[in-house]
Each structure stands twice: as structure tokens, then as C-alpha cells.
């Protein structure tokens, strides 16, 4: 069992004594105590475990720790801006009162954040494509869509016009 050197939300961690097959999800939750990333299915069907590896959304429940190659890992705990203010998506989620039970929302936010980094003004179809891997069992899809549009607008308005 080798040691694994992880960078999570800008912070370095050395993870010892975990099996190679251990999914990143359980390293985050059980070893590092970052429980914002959720277990939902274990087979990459529900998206509750979504985190970023170098900005790309991945399902951490099905991503073994041994497959990491020094990528920057970002979780919901590291989604806020560097100055401590909420990410535009987090603020939009609050403004639109998106959550019901809230269990899926960390994964939803991480998928949406990756989308906006690639595509600052997504269409409804773009949103469908980026978000269809994330279940919301409570059915907050209408509000998730509205919040993503609102966050996209907020980001574009806050950027200096060239």
C-alpha cells in the first residue's frame, strides 16, 4: 500500500494505509473528513459524489485513488471564492431556494461549476447535457436550471467589460 499525495482544495495531504482500489469518495469522507461529497449509488449513476479533478467533473465513488495523477482535487468545501465569498452558483442556489432534502446538491453544484468554467453562458440544452448525470430525488430540476442561468448572468456582469 503506497502513500498517496493528494492536493484537495489547495491543501496537501498524505494518505497512508488505504487499499489501491479505494474510491476517492471514501478517502475524502472517511480519511480526510471532507463529508460534503456524498455517497449515493457507488456506480457513477447518481452524481452525488461529483468532484473536480483539474476542473473536470468526475464521479468520485467510481474513481480509485490509485488512478490519480497529481490532479488538483476540488470538492464542495473548496467551491467558494478565494476571498471567502460564495461562488456565484452557491449564491444562486440560496437565492432560488433550490434544495429540498439537499443531499444531491453538492454534486449538482460541482457539475454546474464545471459547466460554467467551460461555458459561461450555457443554453438549456447545454445545461441538460452537463447536468443529466446528477439525480435530484426531490425533483428540484426547475430551480437548478434557473439558478445556473442566474449564476451565469451574475458572473458575466461581475467581469470587467473589455
Amino acid at each position, binding site marked *: 500500500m503506497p502513500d498517496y499525495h493528494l492536493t484537495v482544495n489547495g491543501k496537501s495531504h498524505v494518505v497512508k494505509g488505504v487499499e489501491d*482500489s479505494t474510491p476517492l469518495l471514501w478517502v475524502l469522507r472517511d480519511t480526510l473528513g471532507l463529508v460534503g461529497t456524498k455517497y*449515493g449509488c457507488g456506480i457513477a449513476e447518481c452524481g452525488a459524489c461529483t468532484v473536480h479533478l483539474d476542473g473536470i467533473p468526475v464521479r468520485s465513488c467510481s474513481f480509485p485513488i490509485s488512478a490519480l495523477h497529481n490532479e488538483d482535487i476540488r470538492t464542495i*468545501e473548496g467551491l467558494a471564492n478565494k476571498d471567502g465569498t460564495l461562488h456565484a452558483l452557491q449564491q444562486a442556489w440560496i437565492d432560488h431556494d433550490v434544495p429540498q*432534502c439537499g443531499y444531491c446538491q453538492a454534486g449538482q453544484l460541482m457539475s454546474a461549476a464545471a459547466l460554467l468554467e467551460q461555458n459561461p453562458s450555457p443554453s438549456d440544452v447545454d445545461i*441538460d447535457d452537463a447536468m443529466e448525470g446528477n439525480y435530484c430525488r426531490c425533483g428540484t430540476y426547475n430551480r437548478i436550471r434557473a439558478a445556473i442561468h442566474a449564476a451565469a448572468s451574475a458572473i458575466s456582469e461581475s467581469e470587467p467589460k473589455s
Partner: protein
Amino acid sequence: MKKATVKSAHFSLEDLLDEIDPGRETLQPAKTNMDRRSFLKISGGLGVGLVLAFSLGGKARAASAGGQTELNAYVRISPEGSIFIHSKNPEIGQGIKTAMPMIIAEELDADWNDVKVEQSPINEKIFGWQNAGGSRSIASNWDTMRKAGATARAMLIQAAANAWGVPANECTTENSYVFHGKTNQQAPYGALANKAITLPVPSENTLRLKDRKDYKLLGKRIGGVDNHALVTGQPLFGVDQTLPGMLYAAFEKCPAIGGTVKSANLDEIRKLPGVKHAFVVEGNGHPLELTTGVAIVATTTWAAFQAKKKLKIVWDESNASKDSWSDLVQQAHAVKSHPAKETLFEKGNIDTAMQSAAKSIEAFYSFQFVAHATLEPQNCTAWYRDGAVELWAPTQSPVRGVGNVANALGMEKDKVTIHQTRVGGGFGRRLVNDTLCEVAAISKHINAPVKLQWTREDDMAHDFYRAGGFHSFKGGVSPSGDIAFWEDHLITFSADGKKPVIAGAPRHPAQEFPAQLVNNFHLKQSLLPLKTRCGLWRAPGSNTFAWAVQSFLHELAVAAGRDHLEFLLEVMGAPTWLPPKNLYGLNTGRAADVIKLAAEKAGWGKQLPAGRGLGLAFHFSHAGHFAEVAEVSVSATKKITVHNVTVAADIGPVVNLSGAENQCQGSVIDGLSAMLELEITMENGRIQQSNFDTYPLLRMPDAPTVDVHFIQSDNPPTGAGEPALPPLAPAVCNAIYAASGHRIRTLPLTKEGFSV
């Protein structure tokens, strides 16, 4: 609710139903213990401020003397001006942790920004029944919460009036301040709190509750109080709990319900990486509590899961379920042509009406079992030490959970403490406290803190399912186009051959629509044997009856050659309340109003292209009147698109507009998800679906837009968590008929060749 106290004996599924169903005798808004109590002011010592609790006579005072004043406080105002409000019921996504404190804050005239909501301790002696089920929290607690806020407000006003030497009735309140206009004085609540505690608690009949027109908070859009913590990933849920030195457990049970462990390769398992313990847990004979299985305790969740995959268990299946869904469907088709075993409700004369009907039709409706599939799989954390056990539980029914765990471990209830966590989805699944009992037994065995995590596969295999079933209808229309007769042979299941499975048949057949409104009516029942465990699934009973009944009603409208809207309104007839002034009885006037509103907002009668149609349905449940119109396209290849659903609702005055709207939108999405392709089947007693690859929930691209419209009538406010779900399935099926001429009589839709 009928029972406010936990029975010491074991619990049955009927107990669950009593908790969420007001019952025939008590169809008025539920009275909680709280309603019979008066308010009590508790001084918690210098500097605590005003603390208001519900009086329990000597018990509360004793608690106060013991220095535990916060434990039973609903409202606590600190000298610094923070207003702490306890939310007593579990938050499962229905928004109660925001809605109930809003009611207190409204009558208190608190600035919502000053309010800090905390989940209350689980303590039946102090908070009465604590539960999330039956969409009942708002209806049951409305008056109590209003009076709690009004009492605190009156005492703060009196404190200010005394300090200023002015009459209390000249003082006003707003945004956590008391004002006296004539002398131009004002004081924040925080500054008055320590004076207020020295005053007598005003009697209830001196309280002046607000008129609805004066509400500043209620009816507005207020965001959930945990939203910030949710979007930043804070530990709120059952799965997020950690304890010092905590271990991680998995638990394997027989895939066929009722099977027990004959032998298992425990020695082999104990040698696997990270595994600390592997042992058999004996059940206590009560499936709602503890079922026999093999526990594996390891240093991480993953180690426990990996070891669980390597288990080799020989099961004794002599008493286990052999249920087969395909056999049951065949049996139902055979039974439908035989006379029913039992009549549930009958009125008029079906035989005479049949002969004089202008047109008669027959239809056989079949619907599937479904699972709850809460996104947070079942889990619980426990710490057994020194003869007592503490649990951190994502449960819908924590007070009963105390009794369940006490039963499972054979200990007194006062040795069981439950800490309520936020719940990652309930839908009725977590009214059963099986996971609590399992982890308590595991923690006791290893004498260490432990978190039990079910896999998704465990969750799907060991649910308490929404029962499938069958309706064999006969109906007729008169020459003038009215309903001449209605006959429904309900085929459902029974575990004991006598009683139907939970929610399999109406509890109050005479009040199950359209029994109240059709002159010649016959509801009869036959039972098929079943061992698969059934439970309560969002809007129990209603979620299937509404589909079959509202679809068949549309069939009769078509048979009569009449417009569905006009036909449905005629069935409702003149405004009548059945039975009168009964909150849980159908009010046909309120029904007609929501039906008309839904039709108007959806553009009923508008021109649509070929292959696109509108479908209408109504259902009354949980004291809520709901009508929905779905707009659906059907392609030549039977691919359907649900474009939009319009919801019209009357649940009385809306407490939190954002929360209530969210519940209605969610109910529509949930209802659509459950009718499209979800299906639980069993063969040889084993559930055939194991995870979301074989049980696929609705995804965002297939979700319709949902428009919600409330009629804020002057009736008492009632819950929004469930009643929006039942009308969705028939509205969609009626729309599919309008779009394609295809009548859906089997769910899920994939059974009839449809897809999204």
C-alpha cells in the same frame, strides 16, 4: 394523530398508518399534546433572557431547576437580540425546519434575520410527538406555534410598557422592536428579554393573533434555514456523523425476506484488510426493528463494503419469501373474473343502473411496486456504552425510534437517546427505524462507536415498498351523459390472508373518491398472498388510487362524448363538504375551484398540433385539494415528452411560498419519475432491481417545467409534502390519450411500449 405516546410493545405497520392518517374518528386537525398545555416561562438564570416553553406542570419546572432550560424552550431571546427557535420535527426535505419557526416569528413580529433555528432534542416528554409523516406538521402545530410567538410578543410589550410607564395597548411591535409612538420610544427585544422574564405569562385568551392581511412573513418566499450549510458542504446528514474512534459497519441480510443465517465464512472475513469484527446479529422477530444478518465492522466504509462482497452465507430460507411478481400478475388476471371476496363499500343499485346505462365500459388497471430510493442510503451512527445507547439518526420517526431501539436491545427507553440529523430524503421510508436498531445492536456487540452504512443495493433490496395492485373497473354513463354506475374490484395483497397490506386498500372506503359522489357505487376487494414487505410511500394509497380512478373517470367522459373538464366539474356538483367542516373531508367547492384554475392556467381547450394533448386530473388527500394539467407530446414511436405541468392547489393560507411551491414542483417530478420506468419486481422472493442502473430515476432533460398556483383560501393551513403527487400520473395518462388515443392502463409506461 391517535397515539401521542409510544407503546411499549412492538410496533406494527398499522401503528405507522395511525401516525400519518388522522383516521375516521379524528378527521379534525390533529390535536397534539401541546395544544392542551399552557405556556410556561422559564428563567434559566441571569443573562439567559426570555425563554418560553410549553408547560408540563412539575416536569418542566424540575427540568428548569436541573439547569436544562434550553432543552424545552421553543423560543429563547438572548439579551444580545438573537431569537432562537427550536424546530421539533425531523427535516426530510419538506421544509418544516423553516416553515414552523416562520409561524412563531410572524406572531412574535421578529425580524427574520434575528432568528436562529435549531433542531430540537428528541424528547417526547418535552416536545410531544416528533415525526415527519402524513403532511401533518403544519396542520397539527399551526395554533401552537402562533400562540408561542404571540405570548412572547405580549410579554416583551408588557416589559417595555412597564419600563416606559405607558399602557401596553399603546405599544406596537415590528422587526424585533417594541415602539411607543406617543412618547417616541423604542427598545429592541434583546434589551427587554431579561425584564420580560420577570412578568407573568399572559393567559391564552388575552392573546391577539394577527389577521392574515397583516402578515409580513407568512406567505412570502423564505429560503431554507440550512441552505448556506448545504451549499458549502457542511456535515448535516446522518452519513456525515463522526465520533472519536468510530468504526464503520456494513450489514448483510437474506435477499429473500424472512431468511435467516445458517452459516457464514466469518473467519475468512475477519482476516480481510481493515476488518475488525464479523458476527451474526440475531433478529428480534420484528421486521420493523431487527432482522437477522451478518455484521462486518471495519476501519473504513470501503473496507467494510469490500469485505461484505466476500461474504459467503448459507441462508435458511424455509420461512423466506418466494414471491414472484410475474405469478402475482397472472393470479390477478384470474381473480378479476371471479366474484370478489369482500365488499368495502356499496350504495345504490349497480345491477339496475347497468341495465339502464346508455353505454358501459370495462377496464383493467395494473400498477407496479416501487421503492423509496432516498438519495441518502439508509444509515445510522450509534455509541453504546455503560448500558445506554446514543444514536445520530436520519429518521422520520425519532420518538418511535427510541421505543424501537429499546425493544431491539431489550433495554428501557430512558437508556436510549436519539439525536435527530437532517434527512437526505424520506418519502415514508424512514418512518421505519430498522437501521437504528441494527446499528445499536452492532455497537452493543463491539462496545464501540460505529456508523452503519447500507449500500445502495442493500437499500433497494430491503425497502418497505409501495405495493403494486390492480383495479378491475366497470362503469357506465346514462343517456344524459352522467355516471350511471361505478364498480371497482380492487385486487391487492395480504401478508396474513385477512388484512390488506399497508396502503393497499382505502382505510375509509366511503370517503374514497368518487364513492361520495356517485349514486350507484360498489367497491370490492380480493387479496393475493404476499411476503414482500410493504410500506408507506409518499401519499400512500392516494398515489395509486388517484391514477386508476382519475384515468377511468376520463374513460367515462370519453364514453359520454363529453369534455373532461366539464364532466369532472359536473361530478363535483354544487359545493358540498363531505363530511361537513371536516378538514380531512372532500370539499367539492374547493375541488371545483382548483380544477377550474388549473384548466384556465394551462389553457384548456387551446389548439395544439397533432400528437400533442392536455390531460386533467384532480385528487384530494392530506387535506389538500389539487388539480393538475399535463401537456404531453407523443411521437409515432411512442416517445413521450411532458412539456409542462400546471398545478392548482388549495392548502389554505401558504406558510412559506417558496417551500410550498418547491414541494409541488418536486411532487410532480417524483410522480413522473415513478410512472415512467421505475418498477420493483420480485422472483423467488428476491428483488430484481439492485441500483439506479436497473431502477433509473428521472433526469433533468426529461423534467417538465412546473407552474404552481395557490388558492389561498381561509381554511386552516395544511401540508404540501404529499398531496401534489397523486394527480400527476392520471393527468399525464389522460394527456397521452388526448395526444395519441392510446389509453394507458398499466404502469410503468414502459410496459405499454412508451419511453421518454
